């Protein structure tokens, strides 16, 4: 009996968490190389392509190993005027929630591929991820450097103001699915349609807010190289710096997982109950589970690449523009989305039609319309025309 409980509540979750954790961390480490390489390719250069050539490793792939080794071997410099305890805690604090969240994310069909099935998992994830900002503020302040402090302050302001649209954008999804349970939300999407379509605006806000949450371009003001040296981690070196990077990439990963679970159907690949639903995957046994997990990871990687794509494309916002966008556009938009969703769903209940279908059609129409406008053959873009004044 005790052994059973121990196995069920301690050993298995721990093993599952470790496996998931290791896979995720390998992906995170690889992301560093992927990011540099992809950014290079998008900027007409090659990116890191040399490390490992002596050992016959192609495309500079050994960079993935070389970077951590360099971080470990480097001297750990602590500024003499820093606040020692806070300086030490700075890189640790964002790391803990970023790692903890990985046991709340469902990677594949339950129960095998879900580490802990919490029925308010989404709330817990949101609560945990939003604590990541403490480490950044603490690190920025403890460095005793005005640039670091500016970076920390900016980060705090930005994360707090984008936490609001981040949370609000999820509300529409919750109204449709009626649960905080990620597994339930994913199953709901498999039985109906990806939430992307009925909640298109929410998905867009979520995408923007998750970029802002992780201090990624175009919202990378906390570490703006051209203004603040490196922002909150200016004074950090060696492994402490690596911890900041690790936390950043881990939380990127978490947000991508959330994005996929909430709007893109998680591990399922189904519409209206047809296709690879949870039931079908479960019927295939362990193989189905692995297939589900692979689908999940593929979707997550698409969004990780999207971060890099955005970084290669968009210039940085000014700080007032950032606040403007957050408070004047994102929050009203999120609220409007909630109102519209609520009204349509209620009307659907009242007059006996499926509100979700109406929303899906609207969302799909917007996507199709945008794609048509974007891909239509056009005359060469006319540049700004000089008009001489008489």
């Amino acid at each position, binding site marked *: 009996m005790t052994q059973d409980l121990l196995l069920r509540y301690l050993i298995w979750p721990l093993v599952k968490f470790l496996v998931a954790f290791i896979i995720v961390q390998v992906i995170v480490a690889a992301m560093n190389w992927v990011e540099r390489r992809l950014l290079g390719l998008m900027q007409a250069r090659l990116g890191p392509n040399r490390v490992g050539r002596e050992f016959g490793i192609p495309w500079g792939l050994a960079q993935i190993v070389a970077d951590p080794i360099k971080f470990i071997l480097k001297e750990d410099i602590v500024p003499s005027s820093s606040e020692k305890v806070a300086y030490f805690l700075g890189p640790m604090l964002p790391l803990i929630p970023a790692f903890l969240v990985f046991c709340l994310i469902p990677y594949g069909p339950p129960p095998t591929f879900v580490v802990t099935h919490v029925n308010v998992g989404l709330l817990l994830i949101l609560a945990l991820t939003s604590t990541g900002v403490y480490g950044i503020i603490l690190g920025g302040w403890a460095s005793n450097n005005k640039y670091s402090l500016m970076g920390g302050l900016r980060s705090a302001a930005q994360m707090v103001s984008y936490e609001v649209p981040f949370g609000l954008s999820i509300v529409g999804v919750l109204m449709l699915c009626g649960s905080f349970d990620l597994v339930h939300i994913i199953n709901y999407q498999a039985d109906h349609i990806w939430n992307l379509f009925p909640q298109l605006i929410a998905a867009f806000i979520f995408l923007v807010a998750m970029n802002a949450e992780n201090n990624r371009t175009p919202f990378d003001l906390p570490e703006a190289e051209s203004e603040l040296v490196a922002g909150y981690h200016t004074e950090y070196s060696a492994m402490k710096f690596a911890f900041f990077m690790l936390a950043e990439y881990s939380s990127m990963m978490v947000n991508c997982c959330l994005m996929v679970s909430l709007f893109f159907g998680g591990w399922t690949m189904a519409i209206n109950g047809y296709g690879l639903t949870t039931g079908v995957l479960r019927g295939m046994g362990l193989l189905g589970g692995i297939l589900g997990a692979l689908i999940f990871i593929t979707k997550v990687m698409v969004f990780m690449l999207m971060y890099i794509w955005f970084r290669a494309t968009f210039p940085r916002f000014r700080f007032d523009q950032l606040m403007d966008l957050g408070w004047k556009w994102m929050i009203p938009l999120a609220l409007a989305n909630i109102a519209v969703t609520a009204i349509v769903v209620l009307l659907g209940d009242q007059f006996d039609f499926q509100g979700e279908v109406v929303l899906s059609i609207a969302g799909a129409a917007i996507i199709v319309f*945008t794609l048509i406008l*974007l891909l239509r053959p056009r005359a060469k873009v006319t540049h700004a025309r000089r*008009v001489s004044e008489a």
Partner: protein
Amino acid sequence: MHVEYPKPRWTDKFLLLDMLEGLKTTFRELFKPKVTIRYPEERLEPANRFRGMFKFSFDRCIACKLCALACPIDIIYIDVHDEQREVDGKMKKLKVLDRYDIDVKRCMFCSLCEEACPTKPKSIWLTTKTYELATYDRSDLYFNMQQLEYWEGRPEYAGLPADESLETKKIEGGTA
């Protein structure tokens, strides 16, 4: 003067077409050929008038020392002795080079020595395309006559096309 931008339509504004257009552009860049040169494996050919490593010709040199005079930082070291030799059946006094050294580590590749050289073709010239002069030891950059003449180098400047060839100025006393 003011600048007039094309007026955005409301669809462009609300569907964020500009941003999507930007994403499209960067995505296309991903597949375009890159400009980076993988240096040790691939090398760019320097321009024709590139001033590279010195090349010296013992046979052409008349030991006049004009190059040493022209050198603004005096890094050309020349030693000469006179010799009586039979040329065309007559005994003639000839200058013979004992030493022609260049301290390349201090050279600024101004090419004034080349301009000063009165022989035709030049007996010292820099229009070679060798630029990889880095060494592990400073003393490796001190070149003597033999080294200056017989290093393995990259192709030299073939010369300008005949019609626009610039005749190098004849030197009339002192430096050009």
